[in-house]
């Protein structure tokens, strides 16, 4: 093809909106809306009152180091213990759900439906109040810590079971066949070959679950805790009422973000890594 033959209809248009100009215009409009919204917020907010209510430096200062050494520490402890219980229970339920034994599958299905459908709050009240009332004399080991671990574990196990099941099913069938043809028993193949691969697949959703649990740990509030057992939300709320100021709430909130934002970042990294690995 020679230059003289070039189709004129394909040449850049001189008149009207080109694609490039349209794009520039649309982007400009979006920036304009954004700037307008920021200005509207800045003008309408009463900055003096906001600062007074949420950003009193001396009150914030007085929270340290307890907000970290006690409250954040307890939040992390509650979350991790709940996560571990949920993971173990979720694994058992996922395997039951995939079992060839009908009643196991059925039982696991019932558990998942019930605990996915209940608000976490009800489960906390159930573990904290109903169980001790119904079985007087029984003591959940570990006191509040044990109760929280069980309550959070019950809440998360249902979600984790579904996630783990999906992960196991996402491992290609050929993997099990290869393992079986090498002489692995079904249980051995599951433990050595299938589950490790499933966990790579579900690491991002499991970490998301950890973030959710981190926030749900605030429900400890409803179990009634001693001063030493307070976590971030309770700690912040108590201080907010004694000082009649909301700064502790803000500080507690920042402490949550201190953990959840990096965690979310890690999840996104893992997800994009996983995307790369597929290619």
């Amino acid at each position: 093809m020679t230059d003289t033959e070039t189709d004129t209809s394909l040449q850049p248009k001189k008149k009207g909106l080109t694609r490039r100009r349209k794009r520039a215009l649309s982007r400009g409009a979006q920036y304009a809306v954004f700037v307008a919204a920021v200005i509207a917020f800045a003008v309408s907010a009463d900055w003096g009152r906001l600062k007074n209510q949420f950003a009193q430096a001396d009150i914030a200062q007085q929270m340290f180091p307890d907000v970290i050494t006690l409250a954040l520490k307890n939040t992390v402890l509650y979350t991790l213990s709940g996560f571990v219980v949920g993971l173990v229970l979720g694994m058992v339920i996922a395997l039951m759900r995939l079992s060839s034994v009908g009643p196991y599958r059925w039982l696991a299905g019932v558990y998942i439906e019930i605990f996915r459908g209940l608000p976490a709050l009800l489960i906390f009240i159930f573990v904290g109040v109903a169980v001790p009332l119904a079985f007087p004399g029984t003591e959940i080991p570990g006191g509040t810590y044990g109760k929280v671990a069980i309550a959070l574990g019950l809440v998360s196990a249902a979600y984790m079971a579904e996630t783990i099941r999906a992960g196991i099913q996402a491992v290609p069938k050929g993997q099990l066949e290869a393992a079986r043809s090498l002489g692995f028993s079904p249980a051995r193949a599951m433990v050595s070959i299938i589950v490790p691969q499933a966990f790579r697949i579900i690491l991002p959703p499991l970490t998301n679950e950890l973030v959710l649990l981190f926030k749900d740990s605030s429900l400890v509030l409803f179990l009634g805790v001693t001063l030493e057992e307070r976590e971030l939300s309770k700690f912040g709320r108590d201080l907010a009422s004694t000082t009649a100021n909301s700064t502790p709430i803000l500080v507690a909130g920042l402490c949550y973000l201190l953990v959840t934002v990096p965690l979310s970042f890690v999840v996104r990294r893992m997800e994009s890594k996983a995307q790369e690995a597929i290619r």
Partner: protein
Amino acid sequence: MSRPEIEVRALHKSFGDNEVLRGIDLEIGRGEVVCVIGPSGSGKSTLLRCVNLLEEPSKGQVFVGGTEVTDPDVDIDAVRRRIGMVFQQFNLFPHLSVTENLTLPQRRVLGRDKAEAARVAAENLARVGLSEKADAYPASLSGGQQQRVAIARALAMGPRVMLFDEPTSALDPELVGDVLAVMRGLAEDGMTMMVVTHEMTFAREVADRVVFMDGGVIVEDGSPGQVIGSPRHERTRHFLSRLLDPAMAEVEEGTSGQGGGETP
């Protein structure tokens, strides 16, 4: 002659209403290499998978090394340790390095200690010419290399027979030769092999016998010269002519391409 290494008697296999194997009788002696050929859907893979009970036969018996595989009371895991299997899609364990792919089954299944497993692994990697890839992960290997690792993994268990299900069908043409060379070496070392393949040159040069299957039965069974060179049945002739010169084949009804493809 001693007992055949693989013995299949009146084997039937149905998936629901679909009768895939309709009475297979086959014997493979020690050290024999038998290539199984046949059109797509004829039941080649199913037959192979019935030999190590990845598929449960509906009827009939299978013996490997004198042990009845189809006996409901047999320790199937113990039987499978003596039957190596190589898949079209390699099926290496992607979360393990090449060496770990070879050592983990030895340690978990055979209970070998670490040093012994590592020694056997190195030996078998050398056998397939991939010693330098010992620490690589499967994803970084070419298809041909992955398949050779898969063969080494099966060999590390010390099997007395090896089953191959189209081991080169998923490979780029230029990688097929390396895998076939490894298999040829195995055959020369006296391994008993049952190979489903479309590689006619391999079948002609390496196989002791060629079995042609169609519609769930064995149509022809004989030496390569006989079955490939001068087939007695019309169906065999038809299949071979299409295989050797695909461009000459007429469009036929009911051939829906390469069926039975598994996802990798």
